[in-house]
């Protein structure tokens, strides 16, 4: 009789332990399968969302070159087909990469696409399309988070090797490898003091090929790089890839002109750019002084040369200063042509050049749109090759679920 009781106790205990153990084991497999299913769903969503963004112009079709907000979100270039992104729509995205800038004379905060020295792309948040709006228009608000990174494939960097006579090295890199035999066409913009009041500029053009190490050496006999400011814009192509880069050399460090977008569309085919004194933005302190400027809008033509496009009087000259009662400068540019606004400026015998790319792509601007995915639990990514204003870009999406990946009891993410 006692042995039967012991038998019952042992078998019952064993049975219960085994049941609990196997339920746990089986449910682990099921949980993993469910999780995988949800991860796969996020990956599919990333794929769909990227195509939706890149193959749809949004609405209104030309919203990128207007001041109004889109009612449907898409970045495709309405003048092209396939994976061509609008340089203007990209310009209106509120950047996540640079710190916002406040300009007291307009009382507005500006989205700041961080660029190298002398290059500016500042768009007021009142006309920039912020991430929340885009997420709502895409129908993922509250369900998915995403980040878009639009970056040029070719990295074109430049180094001044010698000032007089000027010698510059242009370095062309792909992701991790130098690009030898790349064709380089360049335009050297130099600020010169012709009229003694407003600095003009000259353009010197030429071409070269990179060596096997991806570098091309450009010599400019008779040009003293230390005398005036200059800016070198180099366009690069190789085997169907197109890239662009630029180098700035300034003889002014604190007083400079900061161009900002005031209006994307004035209703007559023009946009307004305001020219701010750097002291109004960065508060360097005294001595502040008036800056004379000379602004011209240039487009890169098919002959790889920069040509001015005139609006109104074409080249605009003026002076700007820091402080209350000193208005900012204003100029008009055509809003439907991608190009570069070149502003040469001077203060005494010191010179500088500011560039504003009208349309992402002209200066190979990199754009980050949306919050960082770095702390998210599971992030799906996808990538497409695209063309922006003739420059080869990659657009990458990182997507994660805002609902988390809970399958049982506890919450796993977000």
């Amino acid at each position, binding site marked *: 009789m006692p*042995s039967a009781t012991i038998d019952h106790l042992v078998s019952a205990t064993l049975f219960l332990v085994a049941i609990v153990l196997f339920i746990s084991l089986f449910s682990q497999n099921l949980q993993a399968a469910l999780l995988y299913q949800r991860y*796969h769903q996020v990956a599919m969503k990333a794929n769909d969302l990227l195509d939706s963004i890149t193959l749809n112009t949004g609405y209104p079709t030309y919203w990128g070159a207007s001041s109004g907000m889109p009612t449907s979100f898409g970045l495709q270039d309405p003048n092209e087909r396939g994976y061509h992104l609008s340089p203007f729509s990209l310009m209106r995205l509120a950047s996540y990469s640079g710190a916002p800038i406040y300009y007291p004379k307009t009382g507005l905060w500006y989205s700041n696409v961080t660029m190298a020295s002398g290059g500016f792309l500042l768009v007021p948040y009142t006309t920039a399309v912020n991430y929340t709006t885009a997420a709502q228009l895409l129908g993922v608000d509250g369900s998915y988070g995403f980040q878009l990174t639009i970056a040029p494939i070719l990295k074109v960097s430049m180094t001044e090797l010698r000032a007089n006579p000027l010698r510059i090295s242009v370095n062309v890199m792909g992701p991790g490898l130098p690009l030898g035999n790349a064709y380089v066409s360049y335009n050297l913009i130099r600020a010169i003091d012709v009229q003694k009041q407003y600095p003009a500029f000259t353009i010197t053009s030429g071409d070269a090929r990179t060596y096997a190490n991806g570098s091309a050496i450009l010599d400019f006999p008779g040009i003293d790089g230390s005398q005036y400011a200059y800016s070198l814009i180099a366009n690069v192509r*190789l*085997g169907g890839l197109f890239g662009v880069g630029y180098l700035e050399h300034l003889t002014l460090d604190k007083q400079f002109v900061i161009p900002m977008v005031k209006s994307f569309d004035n209703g007559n085919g023009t946009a307004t750019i305001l020219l701010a004194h750097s002291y109004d933005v960065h508060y360097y302190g005294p001595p502040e002084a008036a800056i004379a400027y000379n602004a011209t809008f240039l487009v890169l033509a098919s002959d790889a040369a920069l040509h001015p496009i005139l609006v109104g009087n074409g080249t605009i000259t003026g002076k700007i200063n820091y402080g209350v009662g000193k208005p900012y400068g204003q100029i008009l540019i055509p809003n439907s042509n991608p190009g570069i606004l070149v502003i040469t400026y001077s203060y005494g015998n010191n010179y500088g050049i500011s560039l504003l790319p009208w349309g992402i792509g002209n200066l190979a601007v990199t754009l980050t749109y949306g919050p960082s995915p770095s702390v998210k639990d599971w992030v799906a990514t996808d990538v497409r090759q695209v063309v922006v204003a003739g420059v080869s870009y990659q657009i990458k999406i990182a997507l994660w679920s805002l609902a988390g990946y809970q399958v049982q009891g506890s919450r796993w993410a977000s």
Partner: protein
Amino acid sequence: MMRTVEVIMVIVILATAFIVGSLFAVLPSPRQISSVNLRELALTTLQMLDEKDELSTIVFKNPSDASWGYLETALSAALPPNIVYNLTVYDTSIASNGTIGYNSVNSLSNAQTGLGASSETASILIPSSDVIFSVTPQKISKTLYILNCNDANGWWITGYTAQTLASDLQSMLSPYFQTTILVNTTQQLGLLLNNTLGGRDSTNSVVINTFGEAVPIPAGYYKTDGYDSSHSSYAKYGWRLGQRTYQYDWTWVSIVGYPLYYVTNTATFSGSSNGWGIYGMVSVGAAGLNAFLRGLDNQVYSYDDTWITGSPGVVQLSQSATYSANYYGIFTSPYQTSTRALPTSIQSTYHLSVASLVFNQVSNWVAGATYKHSGRGAFTAIGLARIPDIRITVLSLLMYYSPTLYRTEFTSSGTTRLVVLQLGLQGGG
């Protein structure tokens, strides 16, 4: 002890079930769950490299040309570091039995072995920039007569003149017809009606009236013969035109509005107007069309001024018209407005059948069609509201005669190359 043994056996069974279940329920690798869309990446890479025809230029070069090396560098630079690729270029050719062949021209790859089962492929077809792909239309073995009379006025061709329409029709249709002749005066029209214009036999020809609702009338015999004195109407001229259409097996084409509603001759009717300020024109009314249909049906002339057309409003191109529009590259608006559509009843009354339907029938109204008479002759009537879209007329004639377009073969050797880009993830998968 027995129960303990039984429980152990249950545990063994459960363990076996778990092991067997786990063996079969293999979860996919994370790479398969959330991988980059390689097919789209491959396609966008090819499109991007061909953005300014660089890829198109390179793939037609000799495999030993240095530009292939540039393309290889560009591929390595454009693709993420964890992606391996294989780009193969094929020359397309067509065998005598019609089979299309693909012969490998060159291949670039950064993979030592195959790209794995999970690799994806995209391809584009690139025509050579040195080749012009031409289209040669089959000639319809008929003569096309286009009324271009300089001594007549048009009506319901607002914004155009009959002469400009004639010029447009000539440029659009002459590639399809053996011979195209412009009938430049009403006197020449008289010769055509006598079948003596230019000493040619006009039997089995096509005659397009570019004057809209008006039709030129020659002075002399046809003016006298065509006048119905008992009704003070030129309706009998319409009957004569129908007779000639039947007699010479013509296809008579009316481009817009109510056919044969006016007769026009600026010399003969210089003092008469159509009531809307256009001189050189006399109204016939609905009797003109009725008389024409009687003539086409080889019936004796009788005066009937019953209005027979209807106004179905917006009409849509038929399925066959849409097909022909795509085939011949004539892209008109698929929706048009019709206020002068012919009734289906004319088919039984005048022994006509619809040989080609341009617009879908709406109720009992046919807005545009070519009617074939059971004996001889045909009648194309486009009953749209003004202003005429002359491309509809061109489309209706091409639908009726269906000339073949002979296109240059894209698969001729050396003219087209197929570029295939296969992408895989490093490590296979």
